[in-house]
């Protein structure tokens, strides 16, 4: 494993609260230390696996399924916690599966942190919900502290 830290923002800017990954990266762009890389992706497994190559630590940010508490922010260091929400897809792999695949292929760094923000609405062209926008700001602060402590 190398020394890189990479923050991976997963999501779609055009699908309401699914924009949390890209939105967090937008807000990190200025204050993030220069040696921390960012990768914005729609979740393409190739993109994620490539981003993880030679990486010591990764922080993954994605939206989480609605469960009645929009904007709820969860920070997970135990990847198996993702398994409870693991879906399988007709047409792509979910983030939990991509991380599992990375582990299976021995490409997953030792230090993995997943930030999930619960969304409320994912309609095409919608803006992010206010509660989700607030959670994005909180997540940005936490990630900046996290990389500063490294």
């Amino acid at each position, binding site marked *: 494993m190398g020394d890189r830290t990479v923050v991976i923002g997963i999501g779609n800017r055009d699908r309401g*609260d699914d924009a949390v990954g890209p939105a967090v990266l937008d807000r990190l762009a200025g204050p993030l230390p220069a040696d921390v890389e960012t990768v914005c992706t729609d979740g393409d497994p190739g993109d994620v696996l490539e981003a993880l190559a030679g990486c010591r630590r990764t922080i993954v940010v994605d939206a989480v399924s609605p469960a009645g508490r929009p904007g709820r922010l969860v920070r997970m260091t135990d990847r198996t916690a993702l398994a409870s929400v693991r879906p399988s897809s007709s047409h792509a792999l979910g983030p939990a599966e991509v991380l599992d*695949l990375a582990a299976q*292929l021995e490409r997953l760094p030792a230090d993995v942190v997943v930030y999930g923000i619960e969304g409320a609405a994912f309609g095409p062209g919608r803006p992010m919900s206010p509660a989700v926008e607030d959670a994005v700001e909180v997540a940005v602060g936490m990630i900046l502290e996290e990389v500063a402590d490294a």
Partner: protein
Amino acid sequence: MSADRTIDVDYLARVEGEGSLKVAVRDGAVDVVEFGIFEPPRFFEAFLEGRPYSDAPDITARICGICPVAYQMSSCHAMERAFGTTVGEPIRSLRRLLYCGEWIESHVLHVFLLHAPDFLGYESAVHMAADHREAVERALRLKKIGNDVVNVLGGREIHPINVRVGGFYSLPPRDALRSLPLEEALDLARWMVDFTATLPMPDVEMDFDFVSLVHPDEYPFNEGRIVSTSGIDVGNDEWDRVFVEEHVARSNALHARTLEGGVYHVGPLARYAHNRARLSAGAREAAERMGLPAVVRNPFRSIVVRAVETLHAVEEAMRLVDGYDDAADPAVVIEPRAGTGAAATEAPRGLLWHRYSVGEDGRIAEATIVPPTAQNQLVMEADVRAVLERSLHLPDDELQWRLEQTIRNYDPCISCATHFLRLEVDRG
């Protein structure tokens, strides 16, 4: 096992109800098969109206994370037809090369990470990777080369940003194309065909009405007439003269039929049926070696045809790179005028039709987008029904598995963005 069974195959994103397949069995016979999907292009059609013509490639590229090139290509061609513009070389070849990259990355993703696990009895690619690590590693490498082809032409973003109506913003240097590892991709694509040909294949034959583009000289990406097995042969501006879209209560997507009410099939099997003779030499030879008939009517064998098309895309990319000369203008001059233009191109999962009307001010007055998955909804229902009728003896878990595999034959773009599949069984 009771004679009455209800099987729901729900495609759920982080949004409830993005799509579903509902199957009901009554008295031991298939009663209901209903496939419903959420279809974002409808939103994008409305979003495009009133915007400058030049926004169409960038906005429509956002409809699908897997096939943005297809949306860009159909929109560019349609706009250029509205303005009476034609592009020459090297733009025409570079657009084909961009499409080669998208076919490679999309087909490889689907074949290895989504569909092959169905055939081999694995729950997912993660489980498959435990036993077939080298195959998954090779697939990821081939997919990466497909991504590289798209990136060198389109720019390294989620969606290609270098495409515009009339051509490109800038042309890649000749050396950048020559440095693409296409020889390596060729070996991997040959291996991919061999790999798919070893998969255990369910035995189903369907009487498909195949619809695809047909070009006299090329296996189609960007150009050709719209041709069907049943005798349709029309220009790109006549799609809505021979096909109709209808609202069905269970789905927010429109269902497409032929004007006579027929169900039709778009995608790799359709392209192959109409264009086999125009595959690259290596792909044609591989199809023969694998014993693929001239027309493949077993929908499960689409996985082999996708591999053959991947090999074709690699060989075509090599030919295009060899002939590329970067000493040219990156785009033709566009002179917008009031008019209507339509274009169909071949997205990895089938025919994608766009039509735009543009006003004197160069703004979009009307947009119509017909994606391949919407066109395949009815044939997917027909396949599910046929597979169910042959498989009712299977226990629920195996039946679900087979139905999921059947739907995946079409590599469906359920929501083109965020979509998960969940299976539930409720015995009636």
